[in-house]
């Protein structure tokens, strides 16, 4: 409905609603910070309260709840009552899903539109899962970091845990990553798919998987070296698989120097160098190298890097770099 459309006839003037006595929101209290509702909203919610009170479940209740939801998609009680009505009427779930396709698209940031979809997908079972992934991809194409949408995708995948569903996920991550390598939601999704929800078909050789992921994340770092998401992923892969950070030291060191050495002729997949536009040294690489030093007991080397971070490269976190230094020196002293 566009703003130019005239408001619909109030329920209070519709003969088919004449049997319902509207229920005001506040009967006694005189509210503080009252919301100055439009007449349309007030009228619709007065009738919704009346329906909830009477417990009626009918097609006109579906129309009424849809109306309230369109005016305020965060009205969780309207969503709950609608869901109960859908079940009571044995309402066709595909019809409801079509309406949800429209509403989710309109109200991307609302918890309730995604949760209602989840309830429907739950009832529709596995056949609804693959189309759901297609729909989610469509939404993520225009709102790349939508938290609810990504979490919903992860739920669809892990709830069904069906090999055919998981199959396309790494390709999907690539599509999102090619669009924006700094999209942290896409990085999180990759970690979720590769490491956190069991082992996918064909990925039983974990050694190979870890190697593949290291090659992947290093490639992405070489494209845009100051990308915190990619460095966090690198840390995550190593920590989750209990590998020492030191195994990537030659790679990390390429990003800790002020300017890249000219090595364009040599292709080293294990140690891809920073691109020509890279702004070096990279704060994340300095931090990473300090962690390697600390783990190997070279506290003075680590402290020198922390000092340069605190005083020059990452001054906002000076206190944190000091803390890391004192903590490392202290634990060495008591070791």
């Amino acid at each position, binding site marked *: 409905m566009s703003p130019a459309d005239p408001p619909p006839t109030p329920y209070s003037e519709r003969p088919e609603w004449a049997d319902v006595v509207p229920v005001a929101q506040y009967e006694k209290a005189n509210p503080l910070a009252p919301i100055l509702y439009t007449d349309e909203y007030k009228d619709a919610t007065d009738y919704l309260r009346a329906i909830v009170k009477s417990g009626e479940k009918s097609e006109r209740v579906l129309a009424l709840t849809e109306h309230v939801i369109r005016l305020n998609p965060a009205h969780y*009680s309207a969503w709950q009552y609608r869901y109960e009505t859908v079940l009571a009427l044995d309402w066709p779930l595909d019809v409801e899903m079509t309406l949800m396709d429209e509403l989710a698209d309109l109200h991307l940031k609302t918890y309730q539109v995604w949760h209602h979809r989840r309830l429907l997908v739950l009832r529709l079972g596995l056949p609804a899962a693959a189309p759901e992934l297609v729909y989610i991809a469509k939404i993520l194409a225009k709102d790349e970091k939508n938290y609810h949408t990504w979490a919903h995708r992860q739920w669809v995948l892990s709830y069904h845990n069906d090999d055919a569903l998981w199959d396309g996920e790494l390709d999907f991550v690539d599509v999102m990553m090619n669009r924006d390598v700094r999209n942290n939601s896409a990085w999180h999704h990759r970690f979720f798919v590769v490491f*956190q929800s069991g082992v996918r078909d064909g990925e039983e050789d974990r050694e190979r998987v870890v190697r593949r992921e290291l090659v992947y994340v290093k490639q992405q770092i070489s494209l845009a070296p100051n990308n915190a998401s990619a460095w966090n992923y690198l840390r995550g892969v190593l920590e989750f698989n209990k590998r020492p950070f030191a195994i990537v030291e030659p790679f990390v060191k390429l990003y800790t120097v002020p300017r890249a050495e000219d090595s364009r002729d040599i292709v080293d997949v294990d140690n891809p160098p920073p691109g020509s536009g890279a702004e070096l040294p990279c704060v994340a690489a300095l931090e990473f190298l300090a962690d390697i030093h600390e783990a190997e007991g070279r506290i003075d080397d680590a402290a020198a890097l922390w000092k340069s971070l605190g005083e020059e490269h990452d001054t906002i976190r000076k206190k944190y770099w000091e803390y890391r230094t004192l903590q490392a020196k202290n634990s060495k002293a008591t070791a």
Partner: protein
Amino acid sequence: MTTTSTMRPVPVDAFPTLTSSTQAETEKILLEHVSDPNKPPTLHKNLHMQFLVRALSQGLPARYSSQDASQPWLLYWTLQAFSVLQVGLDPGTKQKAIDMLLACQDTEGGFGGGPKQTPHLLPTYAAVCSLAIVGRPGEGGGWDDIDRGKMYKFFMSLKQPDGSFLVSKHSEVDVRGIYCLLVVATLLDIITPELVEGTAAFIASCQTYEGGFSSASQPYYTASSTLLDSPRPPLGEAHGGYTFCALASWVLLRPFLPSTSTIDKKALVRWLVQMQGIPIELGGFKGRTNKLVDGCYSWWVGGAFGLLESIGVDPSAFGGEGDWEDVDDSLLNRRALQEYVLCAGQHPAGGLRDKPPKSADLYHTLYCLAGLSAAQHKVIPSPMRRQQLLDAWTSDGGLRREVFLEALCFTEEEGTETIVGGAANRVNATHPIFNLTVTHSDAIMGHFYKQTIPPRATRPV
């Protein structure tokens, strides 16, 4: 702080993407709000107070209909913002607030987002915390009108086999709801081992590889419906709001924690500090990696630092050694955060906001002010205060006493107040777990635990 000349943009590495271009646009806007070194920034307390008074008395424009299901929140944000600004309310306004909140209580327990709405964990927190501010014991005072028995049944009806809770019937699970439930159960003296069984393990499972926490996790069960320890993947990436809720929940659960439950504290601290923006972002906080700074994370992330001491992260433990000794041993940059709130967070017409040029709203007004408060004051668990409360305790020992002591032993550490822009910018300290003042926390818990709270040595906050 830093002058414009030393403000480097976040590096783009000659590889622009959507993230880097929105970041660059934000940096350009924020640069216009860098504080003038010759003119200390002022907190416009009067303008913000008028903004809040307008909301209370004149009402909220129709666009606030989107928060029709969050009416107790609208009140809580307003009332707690007044508390942080050191403003008291007259008895008539308090009574109107109490009556309105009680109209949202469901006959089956819990509070809804408005009168005759289904009860929900989020407005239940907002309603009970609002009552902590404006309510009192006795007839019509709000506190004794809360049906605690039904509240407990309502909570138990939402409990899931993996230790989590639905936020409301037929609704989603997430750690915001768990935080809200645990705060209310703690304040009202209805928290029990039965209620929180498995909840700590659920919280722990929401920590992601980045160190922060996500909205929820997905349980996997065996064929015979036994919950598996693994896999238990987080749903969604590490996020400031969820991380605050998870960490505060963890702290509230400490008296009930099985020794086997752990979270990765080192990764958590790293993630929290990484959320603080660099000088060109004026030191504000963001809520996720590679997202933009937003005033509300001044509290959700900035405020989370106030909970670290409770989980054993204590930077001052290494004090007195090395050349970097300093009175301020906080892990966040307290001064920079205050500058973000003062220079970018304040709307010129009153109220606070996400960032310029956005408009002010009640949500951002509270969380910017609460974040400012967290950056000014260091409120930490005090062994001395704990002992005073223990000496004054008059019931049996056990978990109830432990919950009470853990919650109320927070005190502002002497001599650590840091106020950017001068003493006139001082706001009240707020309890790092509840986001209520210490005075309001003391009063409502004293009532429900039937204890006399010994007076505090320092000035009342």
